[in-house]
């Protein structure tokens, strides 16, 4: 638990150091965001707390659950493991930017059709991760897809429906 950290931190004589607020310019879902935040803010917290894009989820804050997966220049990344200040100039796509002009992405439609979620909390990460995974073009079988999607946990146990949804889109070839 975090108090182990507390014990270590107790050795600090003073806590005078505090990171200052800086301007961070992010491009998210094709739009420019000018955020004022401290450099210790993760991209995940920048999205959720500063840009009010709460579709990206926090499940562990440690890169262990995949709920915070977003696309960064087309690659899937864990937004909890990168700082917002490191992503200036990147093209960030979150779940809010996946549907185009009100039309759901094929994966979003397939997730609804296959009931590939229950509580819905892992869903944005699963969808962003699946888009990134399909873009990587490394999966040639269902077994590959399962393996390559295994960084995204689903506690409700919708696993088979999630993989069914992704396979339908993969085989349909309409995932961009």
């Amino acid at each position, binding site marked *: *638990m*975090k*108090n182990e*950290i*507390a*014990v270590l931190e107790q050795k*600090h004589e*003073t*806590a005078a150091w*505090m990171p200052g607020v800086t301007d961070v310019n992010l491009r998210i879902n094709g739009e420019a965001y000018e955020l004022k935040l*401290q450099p*210790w*803010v993760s991209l995940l*917290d920048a999205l959720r*707390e500063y840009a*009010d*894009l*709460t*579709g*990206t989820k*926090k*499940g*562990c804050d*440690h890169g*262990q*659950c995949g709920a915070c997966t977003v696309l960064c220049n087309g690659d899937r990344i864990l937004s909890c493991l990168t700082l917002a200040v490191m992503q200036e100039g990147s093209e960030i796509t*979150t*779940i*809010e930017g*996946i*549907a185009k002009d009100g039309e*759901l992405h094929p994966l*979003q439609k397939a997730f*609804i*059709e296959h*009931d590939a*979620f*229950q*509580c*819905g*909390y892992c869903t*944005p990460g699963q*969808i962003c991760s699946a888009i990134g995974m399909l873009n990587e073009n490394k999966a040639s079988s269902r*077994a590959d897809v*399962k*393996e390559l*999607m*295994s*960084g*995204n*946990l*689903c*506690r*409700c*146990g*919708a*696993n*088979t429906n*999630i*993989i069914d949804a992704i396979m339908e889109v993969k085989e349909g070839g309409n995932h961009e």
Partner: protein
Amino acid sequence: MSNRPSIGQPISRLEGPMKVTGSAKYSGEYNMPGLLHGYVVNSTIVRGEITSINTAEARALPGVIEIFTHENRPSLAWFNMQYSDMDAPPGSPFRPLYDKEIKYYGQPIALVVAETFELARYAASIVSVTYEEETFSTDIHTNLDKARAPKAGIAMALKPPPPKPKGDFDAAYNSSAAQASGEFFHGTEHHNPLELFTTTTVYEGDGKLTIYDKTQGTVNCQLYVGNVFGLHFKDVRVISPYVGGAFGAGLRPQYQLFMSVMAALELKRNVRVTLDRSQMFSFGYRPPTIQKTRFGADSDGHVTALNHEAFGQTSHFEDYTEVVVNWANMLYPAQNTLFKYDMVPLDVFSPLDMRAPGGSTGIHAIESTMDDLAYKLKIDPLQLRLINYSVDDVSMDRPYSSKELRQCYLQGAEKFGWDNRNPEPRSMRKGNKLVGYGMATGIWESMTIPARAEAIITKEGKLLVSSAVTDIGTGTLTVMTQIAADELGLTMDDVTFSYGDSKMPFAPIQGGSFTVSTVGSAIKAAGKALKKKLLKKAAGMSHSPFKNIEVEDVIFENGNIVSKQDPSVFISFVDIVAGNKGKEIKTINFSVPNVLKLKKYSRAAHSAAFVEVEVDEELGIVNVTRAVTAVAAGKIINPKTARSQILGGMVWGISKALREETITDHNFGKYMNTNLGEYHIPVHADIHELDVIFVDEKDEIVNELGSKGVGEIGLCAMPPAIANAIFHATGKRINQFPIHFDSLL
């Protein structure tokens, strides 16, 4: 033509588009102006007293607003029962920041409130605490001498104590032709919903609060907050439309709710408190449990003697119980029985119901002992179940309201290909993998409790239905919309179901697989009352063709009341509301189960699980390559969402048997794997072919819908089916969960 009934149709979740686009807002996603962030400090000792908390350094940081501890917290309710809630076991509920006493490792001892989340977290890390430590015990194995019977309490209404002994167990067991026995251990498990527990409290002024909470009971939390903080219930509104999983973790108000509300009231600001993943291990959990079984049968396979005893763990302040040992005689009609359930109080937090509490624990022991008995008798395990099939619940000496378990066995076996099983252990192979087939039975009681619902016909002729119930991902929104639409003869498009708000009519906590039965019945009751009211209004209109006509003489379809006798005679809901001076027609109804009728029957959902495992002979790695679960749960309102519930339960079964466990270092009294990297749950690569069958089952007793609930039943049979398949594959009977490769080498 009447509308096609929506009940029984595989309707996609109505909130699906919200969930796949990220627009569904969970409790930590209401970014209110001036929002403050709280971070909790937890104790690093198990038992003792806080001698000092030094917050000066943390307070000095610019942006830190306040740090609450037991020394400076506001005065709170003094009577401990005011901290009680709908799921509180007998005892004295835990009171956060109440005094300097530490009762368990990870107890919340301070709340840092700051302008940003990062600052609150950092400031919490430099709060220094000194303690006076006392000795403690956290290990159930070494404290069995302290086991005792649980205290009685109202919780027993839903969690009955073990049935009284019957016949002469010892004589029957000792003289039985075949005997099987086992000792079982299940480790601690934590619910770990993917969403972190979060509360956002909006300070509305005038003592009013709007609280976005992660919970399975909006009214439960409303009452808790009102009682603890001395607020009028009407001034406390708890909203929880989207819940990122709960599995029982949200049945009781968790401490982030207390912290968030306390800070908001004291600071007169909006405050959010979010637990981190390791803090998700600092409240309720599925308790570690030790079980012992002894089953005896005659040479034909009839089970004559059943003994099942369990030791559960609880805290020193509450007697948390589970129904672990009551199931064997509900399934198998032995006349000589001995059941016992004791608990061991330790220096830990109270356990908390976790998906299929007690059932998923006890049924493992029962069904693995039955498997063992089948081998002793040289009878096929499925055949042994059929030999001992009972249409009555012998433990209560009453019939089941319905029981199509036989069809679960037969249809499940057929689909799985059980006939292809060579009964000999280690006889089936695929390359260097040993292949095993295992099966087991599942059972879960079907409960119904009282609830209210409101139903309104608007001037547009649309139906609005509401209940305070949550939807934790089970499909409640969709299913309740289906029930309401069918009751009024409308399409689902003409119905709006509102939920997840304590301002709406009372609903109990969402758990125990009783939501469809409970809230569904309330909605049906409200719908029926609304129909009567609509007809009465119609009859009261001038020149009404519906004067002196009873509700039985009309049908409600497509937004009209139509005479059965003469279908050309009808009136639309729109016209009825217009005739009511444009005022909507509204009813609020309370539905209470008919206890006198229900108590003549046992009511339960049943299942049979069939599992194939492959076990790597050299490495001991187990893979559940395919599984079929056949379920008899009465009427399935929505086969799509219900199937997902069963699939989820099956994945939980795989997880319970093979993956998840919170490991305690009893030297330190603390958990060692409080993160999702080391608390293992299945990933996509671990889950293979899963199949679900719903067998037809008509039930006119259980409730008016004939529906038994499916939240738990998918989990109950899977863990023993996996353990039994591993025995078949390897010849090793492993009774300790989770089963790891090292026990198979």
